[in-house]
């Protein structure tokens, strides 16, 4: 067990929450800047040098706004909703590694000589290592994250329902349907990773990608390359599914139906004002940060970066390097999400559901089956890369083959759709 010190843990918690909230603040600035640049504008540049103090001004504005609690709301749940939303989002950060980590040692078989002494020595070494995680060595790791991720929908549902407003309710209904649907591909796509590593612990997953995994593979151990065997190489399809699902979970574009301003006034936070609205908006950025960390940890090698993390033997320099690498990956993924936001238009609701249930869940399942086969028969993981590409292209071909058009569908339909004029053929086959 790593030594538990209340003071240190409290300091880390405060530092982590402060740091994450700061990152979230600057993500809002980044969002505005990137959207401005993409629209050939300059973006906010008046507060501070180059607009760098804009998040402070935004936060101050939220503080100073009048706090309106409408008469028609259910006060208890109305006040509870932002707390639930932010609370669950922040709690999820407890297991997310944000810097250098050491995986807990594997159990020692009693049959080995000196089993107790080895165990003691390993535990002592592990106890002295410092982990950049709030709750290190948590074996259910990622499960905890998924549990809290599905709790997050309560904030949204409470907000939409207690507001007693049809637009809010519509927004929260969309959100709950969306989050419940995308939980499945979200969890299923990464199951393969857990099966390969044999653990849900994020620290172990990083250690696997940093070299421990490739050593036990029949082919990879001959190729070398050391710490560059990230899961994105073996599970590119899973990465794609996971990334898309996290965007849906964070209700970011192209999946931002819960807060489609053009359709729903504001979405589930229509009736909120002042700091409560600020908390609601902040929640999404916290989710984005947490899920970017998870993508970096699960698929992009965590703190490893082609050997750069072990350039220095000084433990402090190495820790700082690993922190920077992992946080850099996180920021890169957040920026990518913002680029995607202004690139893909919003999905229609039926397209959203079709994507989850008809495309992503079957693909995730097939990928999982492939992983199970590879694991069972001890094949090289490179097989999985090929299977992933095949699955992806196969899904595309299936889509292209079966996809008809409205007036010329591939499959026979029993009933003519309404509104077709007489001249239009509706040639179902």
């Amino acid at each position, binding site marked *: 067990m790593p030594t538990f010190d209340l003071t240190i843990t409290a300091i880390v918690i405060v530092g982590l929450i402060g740091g994450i909230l700061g990152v979230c603040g600057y993500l809002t600035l980044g969002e505005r800047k*990137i959207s401005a*640049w993409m629209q*050939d*504008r*300059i973006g906010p540049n008046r507060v501070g040098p180059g607009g760098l103090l804009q998040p402070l001004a935004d936060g101050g504005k939220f503080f100073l706004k009048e706090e309106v609690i409408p008469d028609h709301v259910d006060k208890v749940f109305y006040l509870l909703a932002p707390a639930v939303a932010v609370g669950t989002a922040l709690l999820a950060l407890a297991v997310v590694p944000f810097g250098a980590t050491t995986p807990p040692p594997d159990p020692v078989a009693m049959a080995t000589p000196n089993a107790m002494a080895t165990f003691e020595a390993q535990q002592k070494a592990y106890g002295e290592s410092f982990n950049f995680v709030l709750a290190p060595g948590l074996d259910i790791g990622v499960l905890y994250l998924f549990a809290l991720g599905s709790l997050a929908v309560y904030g949204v549902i409470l907000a939409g329902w207690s507001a007693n407003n049809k637009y809010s309710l519509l927004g929260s209904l969309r959100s709950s349907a969306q989050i419940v649907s995308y939980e499945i591909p979200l969890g299923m796509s990464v199951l393969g990773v857990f099966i390969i590593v044999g653990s849900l612990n994020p620290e172990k997953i990083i250690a696997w990608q940093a070299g421990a995994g490739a050593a036990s593979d029949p082919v990879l151990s001959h190729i070398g390359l050391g710490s560059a065997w990230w899961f994105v190489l073996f599970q590119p399809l899973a990465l794609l599914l996971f990334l898309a699902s996290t965007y849906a979970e964070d209700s970011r574009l192209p999946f931002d139906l819960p807060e489609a301003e053009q359709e729903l006034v504001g979405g589930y936070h229509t009736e909120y004002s002042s700091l409560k609205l600020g908390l609601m908006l902040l929640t999404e950025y916290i989710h984005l940060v947490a899920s970017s960390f998870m993508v970096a940890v699960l698929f992009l090698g965590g703190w490893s970066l082609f050997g750069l993390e072990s350039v220095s033997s000084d433990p402090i320099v190495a820790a700082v390097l690993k922190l920077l690498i992992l946080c850099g990956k996180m920021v890169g993924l957040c920026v990518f999400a913002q680029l995607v936001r*202004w*690139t893909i238009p919003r999905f229609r609701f039926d397209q959203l559901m079709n994507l989850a249930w008809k495309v992503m869940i079957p693909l995730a399942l097939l990928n999982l089956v492939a992983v199970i086969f590879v694991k069972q028969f001890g094949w090289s993981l490179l097989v999985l890369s090929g299977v992933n590409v095949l699955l992806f292209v196969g899904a595309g071909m299936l*889509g*292209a083959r079966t996809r008809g058009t409205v007036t010329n569908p591939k499959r026979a339909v029993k009933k003519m759709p309404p509104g077709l004029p007489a001249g239009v053929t509706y040639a179902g086959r």
Partner: protein
Amino acid sequence: MPIAESEVAWVEETKLGLWEQLYIPALIDGLKTTLGHMISRKVTEQYPEQEPTMPLNYRGVHRLNRDAAGRVKCVACYMCATACPAHCIDIVAAPAPAEWQKDGREKYPETFVIDELRCIYCGMCEEACPVDAIELTTLYDLTGFSREQMVFDKEKLLSVFDTTTKAGTDPVRTQAGRLSVASEAPPGEPRP
């Protein structure tokens, strides 16, 4: 009235091939476009520091033109006040001074008041004026601390003429009762 069926053109939904169905190439195409815009030249004008050049046919604050002798051109015929749809022009006419009468001027405006807050900047006063005395300038940043400040009298309107002609931003754009070429940007040519 519903649209006649013969006028409805039915368009087939575009058939998507494998390339489009894969979705990722399309995403990369889209990212190329957005990233290209990210580094392209920005069109923002930093307003208070960088003032825009307004087109000459911009309809901003009014002015009362002066003739060659520096007198107000207006002959107090009330045509602008009549044409004004917002009733924001108030003129009190008086017989012109004796020396003006030698030039054929019978009347002149004793007071000429435009309520800039009531004005809708339609430019109909300018079109109605038979002697090219009232014009709209390209001044767009019209502000004031009170409603009273925004009621422009004759002196104020004449001073607008003085400042805008001195600055050279607004040449006299009506001539002989017709809008001159300066009032409309010529088609297909960049703004001056």
